């Protein structure tokens, strides 16, 4: 963007490389008021405030790239080129809606519960908006498609997530209420993270030369994990985590692995897919099916 001849407010550089002390903007010719009025009139002030709040809520690793995507999506929401030309087909609208909903869902990590729930609500609204041939509300089929997309983008193998989808999917023409939607989204994202960590765990267990893990060790890990997940099912929350944590601690888990190796049973390989499927199954067993 060439700025050579144009009059422009000079921005004094920061003394060191931090934004400490906002740079003073000195105006040369036009009064500051008219520019501020202009900005407010066209909605820039509000737009940037909303964008900044979103950045602070999501705390992305790359805020500048985040802002680029944010404004790109905003541009998609407004009528393209002032509404001239054919309105996009039903399928395209559906894809756009899914894309937008996905974008909202990914803004905050599921552990940032408040932010995540806000985004889930926005995504739900986005999918429930009525179209030309569409009644308002979220139908089971769109919900299922969204779940599949999330799992696919999360790089979890299909066999691993299929049992989950069976449990939480709704029938195609069923209406999906917000709380079911929210629970489903949360479960999905948590499962994806769980699978990712299980995958990392498997990488620790696998023999680099053979790219498989010893079945005895893999099974010992899975059994310990299962035990930890089932431990003190009825106990109050803090005790439950402590119990599970202690089962997975070195003295417990390492011992289990040791015992497996010295046992007389013959060794056979366990592939990554099998390990992930079994690990995911432990998680999915705890998921309540949709009524």
């Amino acid at each position, binding site marked *: *963007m*060439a*700025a*050579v001849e*144009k009059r*422009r*407010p*000079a*921005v*004094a*550089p*920061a*003394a*060191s*490389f*931090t*934004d*400490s002390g*906002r*740079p003073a*903007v000195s105006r040369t010719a036009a009064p500051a008021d008219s*520019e501020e009025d*202009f*900005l407010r009139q*066209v*909605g*820039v002030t509000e*737009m*940037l405030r909303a*964008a*900044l709040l979103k*950045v*602070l809520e999501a*705390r992305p*690793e*790359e*805020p*500048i*790239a985040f*802002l*680029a995507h944010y*404004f*790109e999506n*905003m*541009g998609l929401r*407004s*009528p393209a080129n*002032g509404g001239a030309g054919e309105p996009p087909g039903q399928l395209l609208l559906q894809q756009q809606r899914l894309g937008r909903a996905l974008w909202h869902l990914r803004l905050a*990590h599921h552990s*940032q519960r408040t932010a995540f729930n806000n985004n889930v609500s926005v995504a739900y609204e986005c999918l429930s908006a009525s179209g030309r041939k569409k009644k308002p509300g979220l139908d089971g089929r769109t919900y299922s498609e969204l779940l599949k997309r999330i799992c696919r983008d999360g790089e979890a193998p299909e066999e691993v997530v299929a049992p989950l989808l069976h449990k939480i999917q709704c029938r195609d023409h069923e209406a999906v209420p917000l709380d079911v939607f929210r629970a489903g989204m949360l479960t999905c994202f948590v499962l994806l993270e769980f699978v*990712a960590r299980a995958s990392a765990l498997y990488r620790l267990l696998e023999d680099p030369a053979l790219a498989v893990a010893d079945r005895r060790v893999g099974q010992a890990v899975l059994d310990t994990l299962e035990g930890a997940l089932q431990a003190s099912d009825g106990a109050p929350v803090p005790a439950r985590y402590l119990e599970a944590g202690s089962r997975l601690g070195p003295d417990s888990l390492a011992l289990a692995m040791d015992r497996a190796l010295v046992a007389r049973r013959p060794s056979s390989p366990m592939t990554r897919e099998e390990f992930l499927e079994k690990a995911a199954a432990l998680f999915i067993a705890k998921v309540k099916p949709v009524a």
Partner: protein
Amino acid sequence: MLSPERLALPDYEYLAQRHVLTYMEDAVCQLLENKEDISQYGIARFFTEYFNSVCQGTHILFREFSFIQATPHNRASFLRAFWRCFRTVGKNGDLLTMREYHCLLQLLCPDFPLELTQKAARIVLMDDAMDCLMSFSDFLFAFQIQFYYSEFLESVAAIYQDLLAGKNPNTVIVPTSSSGQHRQRPALGEASTLEGVEASLFYQCLENLCDRHKYSCPPPALVKEVLSNVQRLTFYGFLVALSKHHGINQALGALPDKGDLMHDPAMDEELERL
């Protein structure tokens, strides 16, 4: 995976780390300059293009110097742009003078200060012969150090002067980066018997400096490497060593290794299309 520290920072610090406010303010200034051309819905598109160009590093082209040096990312982007635009200068083995390199810099930044180009040239030439010819790669890597680490180098110069004057490092008050302007440039051969300063002592002082300026220093471990190879060194000897160090270049991330300087397949492809 998200890094937890980022989530725990107070809002202002998080924003400051990536200079988010700098870019937002600049985006608004740019918008105001072009406001006649923008419609209601064009604003979102304008901001999209602006932030995309920041990500790609093209946002610094033809901008004023105060903006180009405002953030580390801007400086790195400018270095990269300079390399990509003018790497062919080096292809034929051409040597240019400091003034000629300055003209090239001014093509990309009309108000680029001559002083900075001069300082960069001094690193290559090690004396005041400003008319000497320099190769593209020599100039480029010296320029990178001078431009990217300007403030750091000013502080280093002050420290060097103090050490030359025989001041005990324990009593030296490490100067802030703005005070470097009043110092004289260390003239070579000023020390009585030995030239330069003792490397390990020098490193101790620099280590303190790096601790304070976390974002605008070369990685301390690499500085240590540079200083561990010698017993004594001069100020410009130090700068030359910095500019030739592969690790520091890689850590900066703007320019390729010296051997790959002529190699830019993406740009070649684009030029083919023309």
